[in-house]
């Protein structure tokens, strides 16, 4: 098992290097630079422009800039934002908990609804239940996040008044960030009603962000279950006279879970991509919006550092899934 884990980790190192190069190259390929973008249509004095570029270290050749970037990374320095002058890692750590909290809740929503829906559709294959469930999943999968978010806000927040429109917590609470996770921080603050307000604010964004993963999980669970339900051991279990529930939950679901776990791991990428839009609609202070703003302002260190940190998260989750895979299925960890 240890050699399996080490092998997996060894593969990750070149991936990281690739990510740094890609992030660096892509952002520098976009025309313009932070000074030009900041000045927009204002007039720009050539002397001012040159000194600003020099101060930011952008007057050096690209390979030198990349080399410095790598050297700093090796020292654990992700750079300093050109725009805010804050260390990238500090900004990331301030904003990432918000994205993580939202993504986790979205994933819980997706699993809680997606798994049972897929199982239901598989066990009622060809019936109206199957068609309705899979039809809904397909609709959910094709839902444009922006539109879906606004529709939910108009219905649940403005018309029915059940949920707040946007933000992480009602502005009447001023919760100092301790962990960055609002649900935990509100509990720590001990302010009455704050936790409830934070939970309320999570409902709509979690549903919006979790809709596509939910649809994917439901469809994947259904097809994996159908596959498994055709296996001989299921027929044997049925012949032994086991109850339908026991066959589905204990024998079929457990074996069907493997591709589903893989898909859940892969959905982390989808969640982070979806977080950009969801965070914009719900004024959610996470890393999605931070990165988009940084790209448009050509804040190179933030884009490079942010992408690398996100890639670290995605790669780590996938590594974990790979390892989990090995735990679930011994054949995988022994394969060369």
């Amino acid at each position: 098992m240890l050699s399996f884990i080490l092998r997996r980790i060894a593969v990750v190192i070149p991936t990281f290097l690739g990510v740094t190069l890609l992030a660096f190259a892509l952002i520098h390929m976009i025309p313009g630079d932070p000074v030009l973008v900041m000045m927009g249509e204002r007039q720009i004095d050539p002397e001012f422009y040159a000194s600003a570029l020099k101060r930011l270290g952008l007057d050096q050749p690209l390979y030198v800039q990349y080399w410095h970037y790598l050297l700093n990374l090796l020292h654990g320095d992700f750079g300093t934002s050109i725009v805010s002058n804050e260390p990238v890692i500090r900004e990331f750590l301030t904003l990432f908990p918000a994205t993580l909290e939202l993504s986790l809740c979205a994933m819980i929503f997706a699993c809680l609804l997606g798994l049972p829906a897929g199982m239901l559709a598989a066990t009622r294959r060809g019936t109206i239940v199957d068609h309705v469930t899979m039809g809904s999943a397909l609709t959910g999968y094709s839902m444009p996040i922006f539109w879906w978010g606004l529709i939910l806000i108009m219905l649940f927040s403005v018309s029915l008044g059940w949920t707040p429109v946007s933000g992480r917590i009602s502005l009447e609470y001023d919760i100092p960030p301790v962990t960055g996770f609002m649900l935990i921080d509100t509990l720590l603050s001990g302010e009455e009603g704050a936790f409830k307000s934070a939970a309320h604010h999570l409902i709509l964004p979690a549903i919006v962000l979790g809709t596509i993963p939910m649809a994917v999980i439901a469809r994947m669970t259904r097809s994996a279950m159908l596959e498994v339900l055709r296996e001989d051991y299921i027929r044997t279990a049925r012949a032994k006279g086991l109850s339908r529930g026991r066959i589905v939950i204990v024998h079929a679901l457990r074996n069907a879970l493997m591709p589903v776990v893989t898909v859940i791991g892969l959905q982390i990428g989808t969640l982070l991509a979806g977080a950009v839009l969801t965070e914009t609609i719900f004024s959610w202070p996470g890393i999605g919006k931070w990165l988009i703003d940084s790209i448009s302002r050509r804040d190179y260190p933030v884009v490079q550092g942010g992408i690398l940190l996100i890639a670290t998260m995605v790669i780590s989750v996938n590594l974990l899934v790979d390892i989990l895979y090995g735990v679930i299925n011994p054949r995988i960890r022994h394969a060369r």
Partner: protein
Amino acid sequence: MNFKMRNWVLGSAVALLAGTASAAGTLIYCSEGSPTGFDPSRQVTGTDFDASAETMFNRLVEFAPGSTQIRPGLAEKWEVSADNLTYTFTLRKGVKFHTTSYFKPTREFNADDVVFTFKRLTDKNFPFNKAAPSDFPYASDMAMDTNLVAIEKVDPYTVRMKLKAVDAAFLQNLAMSFASIHSAEYAEGLLKAGKAANINTQPIGTGPFVFRSFQKDANIRYDANKDFWRKGDVKLDKLIFAITPDASVRYQKLQKGECHVMAYPKPADLKAMQTNPKLNVPSQPAFNTGWLSYNVSRKPFDKLEVRQALDMAINKKAIIDAVFQGAAQPATNPMPPTQWSYNKTLKDAPMDVEKAKALLKKAGIAEGTEITLWAMPVQRPYNPNAKLMAEMIQNDWAKIGIKAKIVTYEWGEYIKRAKAGEHDTMLIGWTGDNGDPDNWLGVNLGCEAVGGNNYARWCNKEFDDLIVKGRSTTNQAERVKLYEKAQTIFKREVPWTTIAHSTVYQPMRKEVQGFKISPFGLNSFYGVSLK
């Protein structure tokens, strides 16, 4: 209870009630984005200035709310020398800097603060700039770094500033957000503690609101400054900026009462907002102009007939209806009508396809001639949809036999290439900075600005002489005459087709009182209260 006593009790009760009603409340403003920091000296965008200069800082002179006219700020009065090169400011006494968890002032505002602020803006070797290196783009843009050659403390409440060359807009420039006054005492403390960079994250000013906290992309909280020197201008207890990037969501929040005032509404939502009984939607012509520049350094745009022909083929009304959804007025001059010295006598050439064709023929332009028409890749208040505008102009020009190819680049690249003069015609615009006519005519049409903001690359000696003279004349009546004449030359020579001045709408809940729309597109909460 005797009569006197009863009166006293009643009087106190009434005073208490009145007090509660007048100083009540927390105003929530749904803003469009996070500021990049809270140091106005280094900022350039309205989002940044709203969160710092407009809320927490003051300038020596200030724009009166809702106006481009200046009024005394931290300087009570000023004198200008006969040669217009020396300005002597008498500073206001009794002004207190904010007291916060990170700074407790031991003295009131004085000349040291003014000297610190302007030394920092103009001297690269100033010790504070060494400790916290930064660029001051606006100060450089307004030539403050080169033209302001000396700042002297005459006594604790008198400051003298000397200019290298006469700049008629100097006082207007001092009223701009970037010239906000910092506390020298606070800066010194930061420098000693090795925390000079904190000037951008933990602001200290003299303005109506005191910084409390900022959560990036979530909210900014301010408390009312109970010691504010202009008594009566602070009518709120607290001010919160709820950062809400999406315009539709801002509107939903406003409807639901989750905010009182919102920034930048979507034109498509305006109709619904105006009929909503809970909302007021005041509007004002914006301090901007959107236009199409003809690159006169290229053929055939060097010919006046060609520019005139292209100009009279454009249907401005259709553009205003489609691109601005009616929320704009056609522009005749390079500057908006709210700018003093606007020449009211000028008129657009009437739209005339036949005459345009004849002019092109006279200039020897064959039918089917191809030109490029550059469309900005970004939205601006003076041009919310440049692509659509370009398509409409392309269509108008097709009617006179000109084939326009629409070209666009990423924004930074667009500006860079345009400054290099690679375009034939291009869409661009300007929002006024300081309420001075030179900020329109000199900056965008002066000979000095060719290769810079003069995208038409139009250098007309007659026009330029007037502009240069205007810049060095401090008598406003004389300047008006000069600029009016300059506008007549502009209109005769057609280096641009002026297209529109947009209209600013500021949706707010009906309980908001006293909000004034700034001509500069800034949002300030001076004198604003909640009913």
